[in-house]
């Protein structure tokens, strides 16, 4: 369900801007596996920060991305969701929603990666809904902060990924 009155997140996060090297991190993707951003060097990466697992809709942000994974795959891009939920919550959430991409647990220390990317909201103790597209060399090329209560679609991500493949082929 969509919120009635969209507004900016309370304490406006300041996202790392395009052109910035994406800070590396290593976070659990399952209770016994970790993913490091640097492992994905050579492929475009989409980082989708979101506030929490278990939002009560059937087609929330993660659910939507799940449905359009083939679109991301056309660009050889890896998409990863990140929230402050623990790996066990992510595992249950991913199973329930049949998600086919990794959810990373920014759980301990809480929100550390969200802070690195400038998207942590202190008051809420959660990440904002924020998107980053990182190029093959590990540089942030696009970002987007969604107004609270509005799920970002995927059109901005896909346009950014298209931009990456264009700049790559023109070199």
């Amino acid at each position, binding site marked *: 369900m969509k919120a*009635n009155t969209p507004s900016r997140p309370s304490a406006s996060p300041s996202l790392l801007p395009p052109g910035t090297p994406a800070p590396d991190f290593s976070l659990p993707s399952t209770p016994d596996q970790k993913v490091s951003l640097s492992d994905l060097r050579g492929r475009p990466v989409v980082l989708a920060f979101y506030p929490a697992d278990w939002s009560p809709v*059937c087609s929330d942000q993660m659910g*939507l991305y799940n449905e359009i994974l083939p679109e991301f795959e056309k660009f050889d891009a890896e998409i990863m969701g990140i929230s402050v939920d623990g790996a066990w919550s992510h595992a249950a959430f991913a199973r329930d929603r049949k998600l*086919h991409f990794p959810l990373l647990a920014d759980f301990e220390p809480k929100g550390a990666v969200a802070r690195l990317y400038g998207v942590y909201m202190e008051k809420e103790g959660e990440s904002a809904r924020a998107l980053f597209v990182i190029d093959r060399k590990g540089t942030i090329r696009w970002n987007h902060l969604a*107004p609270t209560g509005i799920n970002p679609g*995927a*059109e901005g991500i896909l346009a950014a990924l298209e931009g990456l493949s264009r700049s790559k082929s023109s070199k």
Partner: protein
Amino acid sequence: MMAEDDSPQLTLPVGSRDHIQGPSTAGVTLLEYGDYECPYCGAAYPIVKELQKRVGASMRFVFRNFPLENAHPHARQAAEAAEVVGAKGNFWAMHDLLYENQRALTTDDLVGYAERSGVPPPTFRTELRRPVYGERVRQDFESGVRSGVNGTPTFYINGIRHNGSYELEELLAAVEAAGAPAQGPPPGANRSRSPRKRTVG
């Protein structure tokens, strides 16, 4: 990069490929990307009907498919079924039956709804196997992805994504703001609604 509060726009304009209810002269076009198995789309279905009653010929309504296959295992086939019946000229009858029977969307159910919409079972079953309908649904879906669909249902008013809720009052206000005046007080209208709108006799 798009400014954060610019709402995304429809990338595939409404055209002859679309299923459209209402006159082409309507000043306002309400377009929905929907999924027949999604309960939120089911909740929006009677709201759109009511909205159509209230604003009449000043609005046309367009429906495009956005089946969430992982969440809703019957959604894609239901969308294809509506397209099959649509190709035979009776899309809206099927569309309505699907939303009125969201919890019964097996193949046999679809055969029954198609028959009630005027497509005999053998024809329907044969047509449903043709890839053209799946392709059509896929085109709708991709156009939605590119247009900023961010869940189901997602509405566009004159090509701009509607970010508010789809409760009747809010949708009506947005449609009226886009230029479709309500046509007089509706029967059984919610009395708490502010009487600020123009009434056209």
